[in-house]
């Protein structure tokens, strides 16, 4: 039985993530946990989260989870979701804090002056709703998911990846930004697969079946 640790560091409601994982992997051992030992002992790790980056980093530190997350990224199939993607990068404009520094890049706020679409209509921040995810590489986690499929997003900050080969998918709002990144056994998405109906469940199912290679 594969074991999946969903990292709980007090940032948002993780119930929907664990429910969706249970749905795609009814026979897996899924644990929502803030125990670093459980994270390090699991076969695969999901790192979700919503909320503000400064709180996120502080909570990870106070629970002793920074090291466990770093070790999981280095050793087993790892899926970051939303804030759990952003936290992997070097720096965030949100609160001007350092992230975990596992991936090169910066987390930036959608700049107010740029938020106009090609028809001249104003775009709201946060971006809330279903946007297209354009696949930038072939990857086991995209199996069975159409290029350009829509996923559910909720965010005010986006990742500016420090290296183009990290970008697994991009999305336009209104400019192209990295909506998924991948490196080795690490995959991370800005959108919420647990709330993205069939496409999201496919991605989670692919993650559960993934051996961590590309």
């Amino acid at each position, binding site marked *: 039985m594969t074991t999946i640790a969903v990292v709980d560091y007090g940032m948002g409601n993780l119930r*929907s993530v664990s429910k969706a994982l249970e749905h795609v992997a009814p026979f897996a051992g899924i644990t929502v946990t803030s125990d670093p030992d459980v994270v390090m002992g699991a076969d695969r790790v999901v790192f979700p989260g919503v909320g*503000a980056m400064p709180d996120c980093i502080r909570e990870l530190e106070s629970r002793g989870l920074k090291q466990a997350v770093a070790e999981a990224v280095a050793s087993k199939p790892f899926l970051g979701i939303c804030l759990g993607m952003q936290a992997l990068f070097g720096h965030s404009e949100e609160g001007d804090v350092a992230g975990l520094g596992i991936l090169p890049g910066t987390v930036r706020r959608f700049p107010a002056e740029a938020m106009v679409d090609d028809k001249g209509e104003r775009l709201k921040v*946060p971006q*809330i709703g279903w*946007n297209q995810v354009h696949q930038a590489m072939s990857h086991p986690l995209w199996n069975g998911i159409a290029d350009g499929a829509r996923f559910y997003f909720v965010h005010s900050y986006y990742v500016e990846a420090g290296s183009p080969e990290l970008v697994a998918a991009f999305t336009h709002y*209104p400019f192209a930004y990295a909506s998924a990144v991948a490196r080795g056994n690490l995959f991370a998405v800005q959108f*919420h697969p647990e709330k993205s109906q069939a496409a999201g469940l496919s991605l989670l199912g692919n993650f559960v079946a993934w051996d961590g290679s590309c």
Partner: protein
Amino acid sequence: MALAKRIIPCLDVTAGRVVKGVNFVGLRDAGDPVEIARRYDEQGADELTFLDITASSDERDLILHIIEDVAAQVFIPLTVGGGVRSVDDVRRLLNAGADKVSINTSAVTNPQLINDASARFGSQCIVVAIDAKQVSAEGEPLRWHVFTHGGRKDVGLDAVEWAREMERRGAGEILLTSMDRDGTKIGFNLDLTRAVADAVNIPVIASGGVGNLDHLVDGVTKGHADAVLAASIFHYGEYTVRQAKEHMAKHGIEVRL
């Protein structure tokens, strides 16, 4: 191609059943909430909103069980509102499986709740519901006030200003209901919708008065809404969510099909 406009079926729930009335009175039974939620999900609903209109507090916990059941089967965003008074109420709904919580009367009586709840759980899960009615007389510049108690009590706040204030306090979205229109099937109040949608930077969901699919199109193109919410046109099988989306797409609106 870009962000899609959302269609959000709304389920008014009391004592464990979905109901629908006109101007909040004359409620008719419309079915089992879990069954209806599944049907809308299969039709391509972008989100679901549950409004708990249960009057007695001892039946309040029923909504928690309903949300738990829906969240285990339907993997799209779920918003729950009705009777939310405290940060603890928000927490209980989120723990039951809600992704967002909609706050209406308590935002008026205790605006600090919006600051506290968004600081605790993040703006992305705090929706402020505004029930508005036109108060300007014929020939005057248009003005709308915020109403509570199902549209009976004018609290003396300008609806557009109130939406701005809610954004400042941390709301992530505004659910705007035109109380003059709710249940009437004559379409959204487009002046109100546009005034609020243009005044804030956060998304606005238009609600109240949808009677046909053109009304949904108007809400987006003329009302500048980011999402449209409707109840009765879907509950009684007049239209499916998919038909609504196809109609919007035909009018050049980007939707998730």
